[in-house]
Structures are given as structure tokens and as C-alpha cells.
């Protein structure tokens, strides 16, 4: 069998948040968290996981559950895609996140894959980050020595698989500010892949915008699989914020996209295809926005 022997890996499960944070604090380079395992165990299965020490965080109560207050929806890092889709507040207020969850993997993956794992795995092709960026999400990071700190998700990924998180930290939860209810904004999520289930995105698009008195009052746009990290498209946002959407504006916004994305050729698709599809998706969104 190609697979590496399981006994080349150490795996422990302290069972409490304190126990896990102690391990990470005492030997920060030494331990990798294991949540639902749908990224880590795939590498193991493929013989691509370097031998090492893993600490299971699956089941830690402090990292589970969805809490809703007046200001924010706070989603525990261990919340699975299935749990996101089943939650009434997520369904009502975070339709793009729910759609990303529904289009990630298939049922068995959605029962095990977590939002926290999706973020910290830091794939530029991950599907939940674009909706999270559109909602100005914040991350709650916890460590034994530093307690809990809150950082904007925008800017968290600093390069391919690099992020501003220390090795002694765990992602505890994702905090999403609530939008006005009912929400006047147009939300549009589109994942383009080889097939609806299981396939990793060739491109993932999320956008949210509000029109007031004929002008774009608030806009967020983010994409996956078009750069070394998932990106918020601030050049495009700048072209349309505060403006009326007409053909000239759409053309300017589409032209600005080149400043936001740097797609590449890889096993799943080509640069050319991704550029074309990204522009088309943006245009579709702006046309829909203009019609509101």
C-alpha cells in the first residue's frame, strides 16, 4: 500500500480546551490540530502527510455551536457544513455561506468538514472564505498565554498557506456581524467546478451589495481560486461604491478586476478560463444589481 504507516504519527486527544492549549503552548512547533480530518486525513491517505504529532480537537464544546446575539452570529470553529445548513439564522441571514456549505464535498464530508478547518487549511480554493469576507467576518483566536483575541478575517491569509496565527493558537470561532433585518442587499454566490458535488472549485465568487437611491451604498466582493489566497476584490469595490451602475460603470469594474486577481494555470483549470469566468460572474452580478 502506498499509504504511510499510521504508527508514524502520534495522535492524542486531551479532551478539554485547556489540555489542548497547554500542549500547543508548551511545544508550539510540535503539534498540529486535527478537527474533522477531511483535509488532514486525505493527505494521510494519499501518502503526503509528513510524519508528526497531531492533537484532536474534535468535540471540544468551546469550539462548537452557533450563538446569536443582537450584533453578531458567532459560529464555533468546529461547526460542520451540515450544521451551518441546518441553522435557522444562517439560513435566513447568511445564504451565501449556506450555499457554500451545501456545495462543499457531499453529505459525508459535510457531516465532518468544519468551518474552522476550511479557514486554517488556507486553501486558495476554499469555498466558505469568500462569503465570510463579504460579511466582514472576524476570527476569535485563543491561546493559553494570550487569552482570546479578535482579528478581522480580511487580511488573515498573508500568502499561499500563510496566515497571521501563532502555532500556540487555536481558531475558536468565527464572528459575523449581523446585517439589517430584513436585509436589502443582493447576495450572490457562485461556485464553478467540474461537478456540483465533491469537486474543488475552479473559481468561487461571492458578492453582496446594497443600492440606495440609485447608488451602490455598500459593496463586498470576494473570490477563490484566482490568487495565492482567497481575495477580497477591493479595486472592483472601489469602482462601484457610491456610484450608479450603468454600462460604463460595469466596464470599469470589470477592467479593475485585473488589479484584484492573478489566476494561474493548474490541474483544475487555466488562467484564461478563470479570468473569463471571473469577469462574466462579476458582470452578471452587476447587471442583476442594476435591475434592482
Amino acid at each position, binding site marked *: 500500500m502506498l499509504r504511510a504507516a499510521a504508527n508514524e504519527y502520534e495522535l492524542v486527544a486531551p479532551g478539554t480546551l485547556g489540555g489542548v492549549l497547554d500542549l500547543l503552548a508548551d511545544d508550539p512547533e510540535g503539534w498540529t490540530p486535527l478537527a474533522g480530518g477531511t483535509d488532514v486525513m486525505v493527505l494521510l*491517505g494519499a501518502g503526503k502527510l509528513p510524519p508528526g504529532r497531531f492533537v484532536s480537537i474534535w468535540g471540544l464544546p468551546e469550539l462548537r455551536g452557533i450563538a446569536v446575539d443582537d450584533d453578531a452570529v458567532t459560529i464555533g470553529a468546529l461547526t460542520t457544513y451540515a450544521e451551518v445548513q441546518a441553522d435557522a439564522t444562517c439560513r435566513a441571514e447568511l445564504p451565501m455561506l449556506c450555499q457554500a456549505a451545501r456545495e462543499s464535498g457531499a453529505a459525508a464530508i459535510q457531516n465532518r468538514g468544519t468551518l474552522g478547518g476550511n479557514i486554517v487549511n488556507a486553501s486558495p480554493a476554499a469555498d466558505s472564505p469568500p462569503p465570510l469576507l463579504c460579511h466582514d467576518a472576524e476570527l476569535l483566536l485563543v491561546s493559553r498565554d494570550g487569552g482570546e483575541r479578535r482579528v478581522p478575517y480580511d487580511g488573515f491569509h498573508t500568502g499561499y498557506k500563510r496566515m497571521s496565527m501563532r502555532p500556540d493558537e487555536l481558531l475558536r470561532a468565527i464572528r459575523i456581524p449581523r446585517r439589517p433585518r430584513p436585509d436589502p442587499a443582493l447576495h450572490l454566490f457562485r461556485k464553478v467546478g467540474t461537478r456540483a*458535488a465533491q469537486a474543488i472549485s475552479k473559481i468561487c465568487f461571492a458578492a453582496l451589495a446594497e443600492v440606495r437611491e440609485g447608488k451602490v451604498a455598500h459593496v463586498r466582493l470576494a473570490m477563490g481560486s484566482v490568487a495565492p489566497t482567497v481575495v477580497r476584490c477591493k479595486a472592483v469595490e472601489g469602482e462601484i461604491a457610491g456610484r450608479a451602475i450603468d454600462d460604463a460603470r460595469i466596464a470599469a469594474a470589470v477592467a479593475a478586476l485585473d488589479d484584484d486577481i492573478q489566476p494561474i494555470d493548474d490541474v483544475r483549470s487555466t488562467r484564461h478560463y478563470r479570468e473569463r469566468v471571473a469577469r462574466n460572474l462579476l458582470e452578471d452580478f452587476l447587471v442583476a444589481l442594476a435591475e434592482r
Partner: protein
Amino acid sequence: MSGPVEIAFTVNGEAKTVRAVAMARLLDVLREDLGLTGTKEGCGEGECGACSVFVDGTLVNSCLIPALQAVGTSIETIEGLAKGDALHPVQEAFIAAGGAQCGICTPGMILAAVSYLRDGGDAKEASIREALAGNLCRCTGYMKIVESVARAAAAIAREERTS
């Protein structure tokens, strides 16, 4: 290197304890330590669903679960689905509609279908296809599998109406 640890859990209603390496895949523990070879390995990477089992009532890919994360859980495999000689309605439907050919995907297909129906899934083709999207079959072309699940959905609905 890391030595074996004790894994105590419930499998098909029976308490079991095995010694396994913590990172060993649940799939291997079921097949090799417990002899439950109904659970199959296709891809070993979460893509094909041949290794599907229920852990605490949720459908998962056992190739992606390390043994240590199964400690204290209750697991249901294809071997635990029939009640004695009485097959589950989904098993009956696969036989009636010809939903299995070589059979490698079948245990996973059946458990994914059972999961869908336990959650209240109906006989709609599009919903069945979405529920089974994580299970690959190289033989049937899927038509008869979808038909099997639709039949089972109808049978379960009939049973609920009469009981």
C-alpha cells in the same frame, strides 16, 4: 513512532474494545480488527463513499476518521442494518430494482440512502441524486440506484401511512 492504544466503542449495538494505533483509519479497524469487511475501500481520500458508516447517527467516510476519534462513539456499519433476517427497506429495494452489480459501492450507497431517508428524504430524483453525490459507482450508471432509493422512499412512506 507511536504504539497502539485502547479503542473502546459500540459497533452495531455491541460494546467492543480493540488495540489500534491512534491514527489508524476507522476503516482499517473495522475491516481488519473487527472483520467487518462489508465496509469497502475505494479511494481512501473521501471521494467515493465506499467506506461510509454511521458514527453517532451521522454518515461519515471511515477512511477519514482516525481510530482515536471513534473512542466512545456508537458506530453502525452495513452489517448492522438488517434486523436478523429482515432486511432494511433500502436493502430490499436494491434487490428488487437491481441497484447492485459488482457490489463494491453498494454498502456505502445503501448507508447514504438510509441516511437520506432517516432525515425525511423523499422519492424526488434530484434530491436522491444530491444525497448520493458522494458515492461513486463504476457499474450501474446510477439509474437503478436512484430507482432503488425512490422505491425504498415509497415503501417507507406506505409503511408510515399504515402504522
